[in-house]
């Protein structure tokens, strides 16, 4: 059976799995962004907490995904929740790192003149520092999202949603005529989602960055 025949036959089901995959990635990236940016804001000004945040989120990324999903079964059971938690953890490092880098590379003269005009700490962060760091932060989010698209496939081991299901099903039936087309079409789907997400965040970055600081 060729992959084209397979797609023709299973197209609708694959599309539904693709949507599931996309949704879980977007949920995880959104959570990861809120946690990561907050962590970055809280730690970027002082050396020790900054290093701790980077090291901790760095360690997350080194845990093999199979192991992490397995470990999360005990507290969270099977299904969507362990997958989301794991994906959020994997997504943190690029976001935290870019938030810290972005905030730390804002020209001190700009921050000083904001302070000199009577902008308080909070207003300065919201109106000046975050908008100026934004292009760097959103790039971190984009990298995170693409990483998560691939890792989400492994979520199927804990019964998570998405295209990973088809990959694991196919792997369980290696030797049958549909195994290869099934695995290949799921992989293809994941690649397409990754490209779409990358492109989506590129557009978001463009639309949310002030014209005054666009390259």
């Amino acid at each position, binding site marked *: 059976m060729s992959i084209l025949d397979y797609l023709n036959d299973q197209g609708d089901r694959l599309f539904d799995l693709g949507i599931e995959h996309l949704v879980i990635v977007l949920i995880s990236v959104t959570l990861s962004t809120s946690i990561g940016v907050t962590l970055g804001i809280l730690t970027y000004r002082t050396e020790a907490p900054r290093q701790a945040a980077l090291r901790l989120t760095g360690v997350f990324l080194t845990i093999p995904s199979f192991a992490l999903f397995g470990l999360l079964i005990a507290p969270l059971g099977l299904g969507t929740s362990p997958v989301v938690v794991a994906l959020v953890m994997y997504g943190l490092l690029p976001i935290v790192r870019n938030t810290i880098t972005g905030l730390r590379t804002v020209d001190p*003269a*700009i921050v*000083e003149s904001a302070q000199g*005009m*009577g*902008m308080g700490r909070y207003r300065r962060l919201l109106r000046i520092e975050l908008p*100026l760091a934004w292009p760097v932060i959103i790039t971190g989010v984009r990298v995170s999202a693409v990483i998560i698209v691939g890792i989400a496939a492994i979520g199927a081991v804990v019964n998570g949603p998405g295209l990973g299901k088809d990959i694991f099903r196919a792997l369980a039936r290696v030797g049958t005529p549909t195994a290869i087309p099934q695995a290949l079409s799921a992989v293809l789907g994941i690649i397409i989602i990754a490209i779409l997400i990358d492109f989506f965040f590129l557009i978001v970055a463009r639309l949310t960055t002030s014209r*005054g*600081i666009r390259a």
Partner: protein
Amino acid sequence: MSTTTSTAEPMIRLEGLTKVFPGQKKPAVESLDMDIPAGEIVVLVGPSGCGKTTTMRLINRLIEPTSGRIILEGEDVTDVNPDKLRRRIGYVIQQVGLFPHQTISDNIATVPKMLGWDSPRIKSRVDELLSMVGLEPATYRERYPKHLSGGQRQRAGVARALSADPPVMLMDEPFGAIDPITRDRLQNEFLRLQETIRKTIIFVTHDIDEAIKMGDRIAILREGSAIAQYDTPERILSAPTDDFVADFIGAGASLKRLNLSRVRDIALVDWPTAGTNSSRAEVLAALRASDKGAVLILDEQRRPVRWISGRDLGREDEPIAEAGHLPEAIIQPNATLADALNEMLKSRVGCAIVVDQSGAYQGTVDFATVSGEIQDMRRDARERSRAEAEGIHAEGSVNG
């Protein structure tokens, strides 16, 4: 030492202001007393590391003083909310620090927005300020800082500092990062602006020439922000209190004094003029009636358009408005004599043409005028130091 002579209440009074940075034994600013009179430009100048920038930042409390008081308009502001205090004090730094992600209009609106002005009021204020600093509002309002030249950014920075009409402005080397020619123009523009806005300005620089040009008063500071001399530029140039001040002023004090006299303060020299529609005979008559070698042609608004010499008149084919050559070396009454001298060196006729704001001819300045002024200043300084030497004998001490 106490140095102020003004009797009116000062805009800013610093009392025993001291800053010791953590981990340092020596204070960066040590027990500074200073009165800053309303409506004047007071320049803090001194070698690097003397604490002049620290002193300025103590005033808007970007650096919190270790001890001492800051009195603004008679009110002790040492302990008030610093953000609220800073909205009453304009602030311009060398790097300007415009917000790159905001339009020029949004940049200028920063403080008015925080003060809760309504948007029509903000909009009209922004336009007013842009015109005031010489940026056409319709062109520049919606631009971003990256679209502006260094000089234009500096002007926008001044407009932003003036936005809520603060009584006081702090300027930290505001023209330091700008090329010399633009710097000179911006300094002149700023002085002209100050004539109308009359703000109390504290201006930090390390450049004594800039201090002399910009300051109504100059405070020369030595280490620990100790005042070596606090006086008018004239007095500092003619009567430095000690070797530190004399060394800091450096050589060429009499040339520097040319920066202190302005063209409007001296008698202008009349020059033969004629209108663009005059006949050749009329121009020739004007030339013969004077001892000069050329006639200045003015248009209907009395703006200089051509220089015509006797030789140019010989070429009958050219209309009067196109004969001769274009007038160069045009200056305004607020230019300094140093500017005038500089310009007349470039002029073929050897004089600088003085025009008013609208560009209409007022008169000229020539070498004889400038050298006469130098001699006058020398004589004044000599007489003053003689009088002072006698005063010291009489009273034992003289100051301010």
